[in-house]
Every structure is written in C-alpha cells, then in structure tokens.
C-alpha cells in the first residue's frame, strides 16, 4: 500500500535524522560520559525509527517482525555495554582515549 510505504519512508528519514543528531553529539560533546548519554538516547531511538520504517516497508509479515526484534537485540546488548563504558569513564581510567 503506497500510504504505508510513504509512512515508512517518513520514519526512515526521521531515524536518519536522529542518527545524525547522535553523531553530531558524539563529535561535539566534551567527554565520554556526555557522549555516551547522547548516543544511547539518540542512536537507539534512531534505530527504533529505522526498524519501524523498514518493518512498514517489508515484503512479508515475517520479515516485518524481524526488524523490531533486531532493535530489541541492539538495545539489550548496548545497555550493559554503555554501563561498562560509563563505569570506565567515571573512574577516570588512564587507558581512556583522549576527549
């Protein structure tokens, strides 16, 4: 249906915008903790919008179900990893890459 495809396209563009916002934050924020905060919010939301947009434009219901599952998997994987990165950044590890 063209309406659903158009809605999917809008969601894809919105997702790309959030990714761009997250990348700008990654480049412009002063240190690791603030960058992590921006990335976990903006990039994950962007991925969710991308997943939703792709699901709406998918060829079959089975394929449409995959995209939100991928988003969930990325969320589940990135949350603990961000926590670990944040812990390393918070304790001021000397191995931390320069801001």
């Amino acid at each position, binding site marked *: 249906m063209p309406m659903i495809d158009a809605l999917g396209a809008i969601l894809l563009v919105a997702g790309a915008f959030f990714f761009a916002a997250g990348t700008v934050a990654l480049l412009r924020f002063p240190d690791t903790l603030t960058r992590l905060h921006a990335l976990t919010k903006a990039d994950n939301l962007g991925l969710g919008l991308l997943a939703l947009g792709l699901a709406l434009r998918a060829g079959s219901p089975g394929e449409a179900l995959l995209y939100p599952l991928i988003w969930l*998997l990325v969320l589940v994987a990135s949350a603990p*990893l961000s*926590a*670990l990165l944040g*812990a390393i950044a918070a304790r001021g590890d000397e*191995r931390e*890459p320069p801001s």
Partner: protein
Amino acid sequence: MSARLLLDGLLALLLLWLAWRALRLPDLFQAGVHFLAFGLLLAVVWLRLDAPDLALAEAAIGAGVTAALYLNTLAGMGTHPADPGPAPGPARLAGFLALLLAGLMLTVAAPILSAPPPDAPSLPPTGKLTNPVTAVLLDIRGYDTLLETAVLVEALMGVWILGRTPALAAEEAPPVLTGLVRLLVPVMIVVAGAVLWNGAAGTGGAFQGAAILAAAGILARLGGFPLTFLHGARRRAALAASATALFLGVGLVVMVPGRPFLDYPAPWQGTLVLLIEAVATVSLAAVLVVLFEATSPRSRGEEES
C-alpha cells in the same frame, strides 16, 4: 550524478580514509577502532556488490573477531609503543614502488572496469544447494575448502610454536557483563545454527556461522566463563582437526562405489554437505576462540593440565 554513484563513491573514499588512519595513527587503540569501522564499512560494500554471504563473513570475522583479537593483544602492551618508524630512504623507495604498483593495477583494471559486468558463470545442477556460494564452496570446489580447513590446524600449530598456552580459567568480571553474556550467548548460538542451516538454500554457511559462534565464545571468555570443553591441549587439537578429518573421511568414503574423490552421490549430497558444514562450524569457532585466548595478556606460556 545518480544517488547510487554518490553512495558508492562516498563508501570508497571512506574506506580509503579509514585504512589510511588505521595505518598511520600513533595511538594503537584508535587505530584498532578505525580498523573495526573499516571492516564494517567493507561489509556494506559487499552488500552493494550483491554478495550477502561475503558481507556476513566480513562483518563477523573481518570486523568482529579480528578486531577482538587485535584489541586483546593491545591489552597486553601499551597503546603507544616506541616505534621509531622506517628510515627515510627505504620509506621513499617503498612509496615509489607502491605508486608504481598502483599505476600498473589501474592500467590493467581500467578496461575490465569500463566493460559491462560479465554474466554469472553457469554452474552445473547442484541439487538442494540453491545458494551458489555454498554449492561452489562445499560441492563443486570442495577440495579447496578441504584444504582451507587444514589451515585451521596450521593456525593452531602457530599458537603452539609460540608457546602460548591459553589459560581458559574462570575469572572475575563485572556482573553487568556476566548478565549480558548469559543473555546474549544462547541467542548467538541459536543464530549461528540458523545461519548454518540457512546457508544451503539462502544466505549463510559454515564460515559465517562459525564466526558468530566464535564471537559467542569470545564474549563468554570476556565474561569470565571458563570454557571447560576447550580445556586440554589434546581436546583442542582434536576439535581443530575434526573438520579436516571429517571432510577427508567423507571424500574417501564416497569413493567406495567407484566414484571420484569428494563426488557426493546425489541423494546424500544435502546431508553430507550439512554434516561437513556443521563440524566445520564448531571446529573453526573453537580455533578462533583458542586464538583469542592465546593472544590474551593472561596466557604467558604457563603449563596447564
């Protein structure tokens, strides 16, 4: 200028830039991250070239496992090693030769690149293996893949020669990490099996599944889980050699009714290929995890039971 050309050009430029940075950055950690990004971008390039199997393998092995090996090795040394760099004379000669080589390659490749893309070669009928990549790897050119599995054993021998015994002991890890590992590793094992199973007819295959399984193993090791099924040098050797041994065995057994080496009889083709692929998946994954452990700063050649 079409959007595809713009995208492809951007990808090519990004690849070159990332490769340059990975080679030239003095901070090895940053270089490693650039290498990881390079691998992932290369996977996108494979997708642009309509090669999803290659993209899967590149993302899993080229970017994932290799970057993990690199960063693991880096953990045992400083990120800014004292490296004086090459002397100016040999460096200039090397640069000149590299430019010469690039020019020669461009001259040779230009007529190929400007010609229309060739038709895909027609393969002989391959029964149930409708994925042409799997059909070529495991059936038509199965002998090459057999020799490739032997390379796994050689890789393990390289580890033995260096005298690095993988520790593989249980370790402390942050509870956040162990919780994540407990959740992710079963999912990754299932996905690896699905990729292996899907490889016969669709995208996937033994090497992609092995890379995902190896990533699960590496993740488990990072979470401090002792992989007891990898303890013991003999067991590791048996796991590494199992792929070659089975492949060779199948190739010899099918000769019994008078067929050539590795010529699967038609009704058994799917089963035999799946069997070989399954064993190769586990074997390659085991070797990759052992390689990861052997490059770890923890294993310094101490003897283990």
